């Protein structure tokens, strides 16, 4: 149920955006506007820090395989 609400909210959100002309995309290309840390090394290293101590895992990607750490 909560999932359905969430997806609906996402769809509504998508429709309610201010128009962005393609030539206005300059800011969106900044490294700090990316979803993953812009430096690949930092991003990969962080993947080892929290999941080893918590039960929750994943969210951003799949296919990373498992480890004996959890």
């Amino acid at each position, binding site marked *: 149920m909560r999932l359905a609400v969430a997806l609906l909210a996402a769809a509504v959100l998508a429709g309610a955006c201010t128009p962005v002309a393609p*030539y*206005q995309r300059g800011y969106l290309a900044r490294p700090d506007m990316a979803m993953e840390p812009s430096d690949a090394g930092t991003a990969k290293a962080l993947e080892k820090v929290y999941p080893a101590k918590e039960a929750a895992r994943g969210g951003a990607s799949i296919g990373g395989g498992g480890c004996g750490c959890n």
Partner: protein
Amino acid sequence: MESSASLTRSEALRAPHLVAFRAMAAVNEIQLYADDPVHARVMAAGAITEVRRIEAKYSRYRADSVVSRINAAAGGPAVAIDEETAKLLDYAEACYRQSRGRFDPTSGVLRRAWRFEAGAPIPTANELDPLLAKIGWHRVERKAGTIRLPIAGMEIDFGGFGKEYAVDRAALALREAGARNAVVNLAGDLAVLGPQADGSPWRIGVRHPRRADAAIATIPVSSGALATSGDYERFVEVEGVRHCHVLDPRTGRSARGFQSVTVHAHSCLVAGSACTIAMLTGRDEGLAWLESLSLPYLAVLEDGIVVDRFRESR
């Protein structure tokens, strides 16, 4: 990368040579790598000769040029033209079509009404109307290697693409002379054959449209051509409104919307036409035009806002 591989390591450590030359009423330059300045001049010679040849052939200031011959026969018989001229006119035709008539090689006659000097007046409708009657690429008759301007006083002008063509021809000449990492720059319209010897890009400054001797942006370019169109090259300001040399052939009046447009393309011809057509099309449609090309560009809008599409990766 394919460019750096052609130089030996010792060559790569040296700085490029700059060969300056006069042509098209400006100081132009070629940068390339060579053993010494003499060798550099030899390598650049073919390119410089090409630029001067094109200037001689298509300049309206030379009575013996192809353009002057064609214009002298306006209202008279058709004039025979060679393959190079025919293909250039085919290119101009493509620009005319893609810009829906705004890019018109017959709009040069408007020169007679406009003087871009301080204090010069804006032409009136009375002065422009008779000139507008002589404009219209669709009126030009082209048949099997000939061209005819049907109305006396009509003119064709290669000014909208002649310099860009010269840049591209010079680039070819440099390539044929063996240059791989070089830049040919004709007063702001340029072509980059390949990056500097160490693989890093050339840093090309785009002139600030309102501040002479200042750059509004520095673009790192590894290859390709860059052309700029601006309202600061020749203009007259009356009552705070700037009228520049980029004139709309449908109204005779100055184009509005941009202070300058710079486009990066695979040839200076296409880069130059892209900028000119953008300036002629006005702000919103002009930006849409630039977007439709999917080429990197930098545009300074009339109000000073900078739209920089070079910053985006991929």
